């Protein structure tokens, strides 16, 4: 209405409005789940009040890996090599430990060509939000199965997948990631909570987001279609995330909810649905994954969390100053050192 008052733009704790978190216009297909994920990333970084200039965006190759161009324009981004985002992210984070890093990969980028780097990144517990935009197929090359496609899932051309899927969450838990979640691009609320919790976490946050491919994998017979995922999404419980900078007290019935204190002081409240769901128990988490998979369902939510585990930067005992910005006198030893080495070689 023309006479309605102009409302002030909503700003976050840094005084930035959401436009500071947007990216370039997407070139992905209309309705692509990946675009919904980009939207949630924008919301999460905005609501958490993260300075976009303090963020590194990284990706491999594929539809998913294009998406860092579609969020956080003020951040430096690196669309690298197919399956190799983990190594580039590792180098970048080691060079500048003060940055918040987010890596976007796909199910082919991670589960096939990049499985080796994925495995070793999880082992190292690198401080990185690692998102798999998981649609069970290769989009950019027109619909071939990826390693997360379910056994018996049908491709658009009728071919039936005859290999079992890799469960990237089970793998990540097994390998040492300290925050492992699965979500659905269509579940705005859950995905946003998961992402906000991941921002608060120190260490690797591995989030597998089922993100249907509207062009090549959204038909009957596919187990990664919108309707299939919607019908088979099995949330483990309700997630409430309370950032450390918000003064909110939530009351909950003891025994019904698990409260997790995040590294930055934020609070994660996980209201149980399943009786024995315990997000700090690796074995229980893997059991839940197996049991839901056997029923043809997707267990979604925060599957496993270990908030205090040392990350890779800690284990390398790095100085606080980013390595990239150490001045010469801290990286070039004095002449006396060269003299000492020369003397030892005489």
């Amino acid at each position, binding site marked *: 209405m023309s006479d309605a008052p102009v409302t002030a733009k909503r700003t976050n704790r840094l005084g930035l409005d959401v436009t500071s978190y947007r990216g370039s216009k997407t070139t992905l297909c209309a309705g692509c789940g990946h675009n919904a994920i980009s939207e949630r990333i924008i919301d999460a970084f905005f609501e958490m009040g993260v300075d976009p*200039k*303090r963020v*590194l*965006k*990284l990706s491999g190759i594929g539809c998913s890996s294009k998406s*860092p*161009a579609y969020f956080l*324009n*003020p*951040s*430096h*981004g*690196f*669309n*690298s*090599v197919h399956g*190799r985002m*983990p*190594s*580039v*992210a*590792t*180098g*970048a*984070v*080691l*060079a*500048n430990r*003060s*940055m918040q890093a987010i890596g976007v990969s796909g199910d082919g980028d991670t589960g096939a060509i990049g499985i*080796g*780097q994925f*495995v*070793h990144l999880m082992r190292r517990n690198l401080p990185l939000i690692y998102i798999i935009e998981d649609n069970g197929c290769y989009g950019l090359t027109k619909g071939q199965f990826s390693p997360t496609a379910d056994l018996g899932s049908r491709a658009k051309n009728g071919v039936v997948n005859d290999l079992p899927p890799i469960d990237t969450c089970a793998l990540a838990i097994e390998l040492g990631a300290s925050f492992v979640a699965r979500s659905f691009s269509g579940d705005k609320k859950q995905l946003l909570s998961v992402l906000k919790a991941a921002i608060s976490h120190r260490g690797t946050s591995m989030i597998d987001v089922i993100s249907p491919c509207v062009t090549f994998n959204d038909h009957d017979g596919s187990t990664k279609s919108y309707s299939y995922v919607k019908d088979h999404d099995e949330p483990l419980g309700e997630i409430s995330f309370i950032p450390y900078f918000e003064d909110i007290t939530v009351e909950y019935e003891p025994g019904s909810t698990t409260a997790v204190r995040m590294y930055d002081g934020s609070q994660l409240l996980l209201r149980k649905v399943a009786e024995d769901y315990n997000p700090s128990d690796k074995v229980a988490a893997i059991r839940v994954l197996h049991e839901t998979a056997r029923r043809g369902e997707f267990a979604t939510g925060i599957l496993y969390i270990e908030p205090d585990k040392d990350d890779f930067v800690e284990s*390398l*005992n*790095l*100085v*606080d100053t*980013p*390595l*990239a*910005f*150490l001045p*010469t006198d*801290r*990286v*070039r*030893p004095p*002449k006396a*050192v*060269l003299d000492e*080495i*020369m003397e030892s*070689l*005489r």
Partner: protein
Amino acid sequence: MSTPLPAAETERADARSQVVNDFSIQVATVNGSGSQTANLVLLRSIFQMGVPVSGKNLFPSNIAGLPTWYTIRANHRGYISRKKEIDFLVAMNPESAKEDVVSLEPGRVVVYDEPLKLNALRNDLVFYPVPFDKIVAEVCSDAKLRRLVKNMIYDGVLSELLSIEIGEMEKALAKQLGKKPKAMALNMGALEAGKKFAAEHLEKRHPYRITRMNKTAGQILVEGNAAAAMGCMFAGVTVVAWYPITPSSSLPETLIGYMRKYRMDRETGKATFAIVQAEDEIAALGMVVGASWAGARAMTSTSGPGISLMSEFAGLAYYAEVPAVVFDIQRVGPSTGLPTRTAQGDLLFVAVNSHGDTRHVMLLPASVQECYEMAMEAFDLAERLQTIVFVMSDLDLGMNTWMARPFPYPEAPLDRGKVLDEAKLREINASWGRYKDIDGDGIPWRTLPGTNMPAFFTRGSGHNEMAVYTERADDYVRNVDRLARKFDTARTIVPAPVVDRDATAKIGLIAFGSSHWAVEEARDQLREESGLRTSYLRLRAYPFTPAVDEFIRQHDRVYVVEQNRDAQMLSLLLMDGEAQFANRLRSVLHYNGLPIDARSVSDDILEQEGLRPARHKDTAPPANQPQDQRTYE
């Protein structure tokens, strides 16, 4: 001997006369028998007596049980390339002993383990049998240690037979063993027992002697990989990612030792560096690219097979213009090839490594000092040019022990290249674009994350000057043409060749890397033995500077000496040089996995010049080159 005696060896004409400080020793042992300490003591004690010396380990790709040879060359003129002929053999390995002895030239000397009865094989050599097992049993009560201690006995025997001062051997041993009094006493006992045995039982019937000189005073002994590691540390490297591979591993491993000792923050005790053993070479270069992109000085080290895996990232670093430093310690290949043998076989592969139109800067160190200095130059060039720079060392340079003057402390500040800051941004203001050529040298300005400078999106796919995705034909062409211009800028700032021009010479030699030492000696051989004068240009980098074309123009024939089969450097010269001079270029190729020697170079040039009858390369090897021909599976 049917061939004329080389000038440098005329002293050997009479076996009764002395050959002083000019001969080679080869110790043949079994891989894994712990002979390295004894061999280094031998090398170091000669060095400490002031005699120029070099040591080369010819070893198999194996942990234990296969034959291995350590060759030491002492030379009063200072020649330190491998000597082709073996003068003094220590035969400890039953498996190779027979062949080792059969291949010697007449008049040479063999110290051998008595039960091998090698003296029955030839009657034109000097044989010294030594009952090693008997002697070691007397000085070492622990049967388990005897195999190791036995090696020190041959050092003792050689001390007596070659007049190497035992005091220097003791000093050298102390250097090896450090503060281990028990091991020191045990080994000294073995040294002395060997010397005593030789003094009492072996009558000297050979001419070889070491006598004190003063040609090594103040010098150091070091491997190229250790020198390169030092260079990386003084270059201020902060991120290192690597994957184990022979002959490269000792570079990062030595670097880890130095960094832990000298690069922990004084106040906090924390590391001013991150060193990661990556899951493979792909990840190693990926980490380097990520770290350099974020502003760190980052490097990796590998060998040929690792470069294969790095190719995709090498292309990305070139096209996305991210600095990176890669050491290629070359070995023999294709495929696994001969992983413990030396070569200069990755030149063509590296120069254009990756798909599409790609050119890379290569630095070509010839000495341990250049391994140290070029490590620093590589980081400066990589950041200045915003590209990947390869340092092309090899197994001979990297893993063998070389004499050198102490390295100079770097005086120049680090060149961190064109990194945009507030002041520069104000100066160029709105005209900044990540891939915009503001200065006309093809090198754009970059920004680093976390510096509050404008961000950009790095990608390997087509991008315009503003780093925005594009597949426009004109944008692509403009960008790759600028990259070519940047490569021309590289030409003006890479290390220039070293030229030694003889104005009277019609012949020029071009060489690089570890071939340098053999080429220097070969030039002396050609001049002194055949009156053939030569000029010499030593390449130190690719792309070539204009001095290279000029050198070729100045000579009728130019021999390019290199350690590969396919004349790879010559091919690069043909690719990049002035076509009308192509027919002046000839090749001298050495590619059998052994370090190149001077005689092979001078003989080859004499043959091509028609000054010496051609060898029949397909027939049995002449007696003087057995080491080059034998094979062990």
